[in-house]
């Protein structure tokens, strides 16, 4: 394989190591622990202490870390304190809904954002531009829960077109699967599109005045092609970057949306395991999320070079 790729993949190791240490520290600084959560609302400090001992949570922190990391190196991410499944199973089972949702939301966001951003850039200063920018401002400033609730009330409750919340896996049939995802995907997509729209507009503005646009126009390239092919590709690096970021954000936890729509995804897993102090799961998920980001950013970086051949990420 290529040296650059190898280097990037090897770089994952120190990143994971550092992240795991940091997370471990953070988790253990944070008050509350799984014992107190298991025991419920009215447990006493003594009860909690007893359970802590039984669970091995009273060991010195470096020892706990060593125990954990040796397991991880053996490929075992550990067991949840709460779920009857291993951490890797938990991640896997929560990944499916999140992936479906993320992909759908991303598609929606792009379908909204790219054309709108381009329109705004082309019609800069006109009413169309201002309308588009107005909407994207709404998207930026409105908390996602408001849009989600609005959609639920309108489409789910008033019109009763789609279920308000919940999730069905793909095995339940495509439509059954999608039906639950459309609303959350739309609400996420719409919000995410705000940033992409603005980024598209401003990056497009940077390139529209370039000479090569003039030259392409002089060849008789149709306006659409001119924009979508010649300009967009040149303007695409920052756009791609935010797409990568939003996608990363979607895959690793659209917490609010998942909560409102009751989607048992990675976001829920993260927030719930933080709320339950499910240490092993938190650690596992964070490692997983790190891999996701490293991977997405790797792809984005490779795409940089494909999109713009001038970009070089390594020395020759």
């Amino acid at each position, binding site marked *: 394989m290529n040296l650059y790729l190898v280097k990037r993949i090897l770089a994952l190791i120190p990143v994971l190591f550092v992240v795991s240490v940091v997370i471990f520290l953070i988790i253990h600084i944070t008050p509350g622990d799984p014992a107190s959560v298991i025991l419920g609302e009215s447990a006493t400090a003594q009860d909690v202490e007893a359970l802590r001992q039984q669970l091995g949570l009273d060991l010195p922190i470096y020892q706990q870390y060593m125990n954990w990391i040796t397991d991880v190196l053996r490929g075992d991410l550990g067991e949840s304190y709460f779920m009857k499944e291993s951490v890797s199973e938990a991640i896997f089972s929560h990944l499916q809904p999140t992936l479906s949702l993320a992909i759908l939301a991303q598609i929606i966001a792009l379908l909204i954002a790219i054309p709108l951003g381009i329109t705004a850039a082309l019609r800069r200063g006109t009413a169309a531009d201002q309308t588009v920018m107005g909407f994207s401002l709404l998207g930026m400033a409105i908390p996602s829960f408001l849009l989600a609730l609005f959609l639920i009330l309108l489409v789910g409750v008033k019109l009763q077109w789609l279920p308000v919340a919940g999730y069905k896996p793909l095995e339940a049939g495509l439509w059954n699967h999608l039906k639950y995802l459309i609303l959350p995907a739309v609400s996420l997509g719409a919000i995410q599109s705000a940033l992409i729209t603005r980024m598209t507009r401003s990056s497009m503005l940077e390139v529209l*005045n*370039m*000479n*090569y646009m*003039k*030259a*392409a*126009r*002089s*060849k*008789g*390239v*149709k*306006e659409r092609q001119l924009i979508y092919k*010649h300009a967009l*590709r*040149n303007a695409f690096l920052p756009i791609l970057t935010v797409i990568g970021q939003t996608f990363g954000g979607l895959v690793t936890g659209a917490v609010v949306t998942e909560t409102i729509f009751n989607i048992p995804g990675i976001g829920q897993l993260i927030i719930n395991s933080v709320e339950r102090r499910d240490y092993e799961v938190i650690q596992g998920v964070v490692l997983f999320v790190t891999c996701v980001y490293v991977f997405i950013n790797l792809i984005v970086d490779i795409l940089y070079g494909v*999109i*713009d*051949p*001038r970009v070089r990420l390594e020395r020759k």
Partner: protein
Amino acid sequence: MTKPPLLEVNELKVHFYTERGRITAVDGISFHVNAGEIVGVVGESGCGKSVTSQAILRLLDEKDTVEYDGKILFEGTDLLQLPEAGMQKIRGNEISMIFQDPLSSLNPVFSIGSQIAESLMLHQQISKKAAFEKAIELLRMTGIPAPEKRVHEYPHQLSGGMRQRAMIAMTLACQPKLLIADEPTTALDVTIQAQILDLMLELNREQGMGMIFITHDLGVVAELCSRVVVMYLGQIVEEADVETLFAQPRHPYTKGLMKSIPQMDSDRSQKLHVIEGMVPTLDNIPTGCRFAPRCPYADYMCHERPPAYEEHAAGHKVRCWHAEKIAQEEEERSYVS
């Protein structure tokens, strides 16, 4: 001439809105190009050649900063009145253009092959594969070595001359009725320049392609063009066929130009001839004749009143109060030599 000319530019003015206000970069120029004719445009750097040529294709940023006046008739239709969609049909198809600045005019993110192929596919119904093959062929015609490899390269990987040739290949792909070439051979060595000029002449002869050829190289003008337009500070100051112009320039600026050319057989230790003084800026245009401040012939009238653009001999138009006098001088000179 009963048939209308291929292109007729009539009192074209181009105004730019800059932060310092409105400036008129091209100020009422008129000329025409007949089908199958090569018209050379020469002139001071910054006199408006590129602006004129881009105005013909309406490529300047109309929405924001540019305003046009006058008429540009292409086969009888006024391009300035055409809607953008109509313009799109003309660009590339009927009129195409080689830009002066090859690097910034090539899209950095597409290989030159795909840029040429794009032109081809726009104007001919051919497949992508065929287009690429044709692109290779065109690159070969312009003298790029190993074109089958070069098609996949990106503009930044090419030398200045190769970029220019890629631009040329791209325009030739369109097989337009009118080609506007804005200094197309500046970055080419003379052997390749010769090859390219031959290529253009061939197209001109075989397909009757009209051409506006902007250049500073009077040698090229002499070899290629049939008629020449001389511009100075946004105006046309002289127009004539090549022989006449080179033999009997009637405008002092043209005369100065001729004298400034470094000759292959000149004395190297001599300083080159220069036209004294500076070109005025566009927001500070002299009243009277625009060339007057630098003109050895200038008199009171020149400074006061702008000369008219008049036909002095058949097909020889000049904008100068002293055109006749200069013509006489030139005649005498040619007798002497």
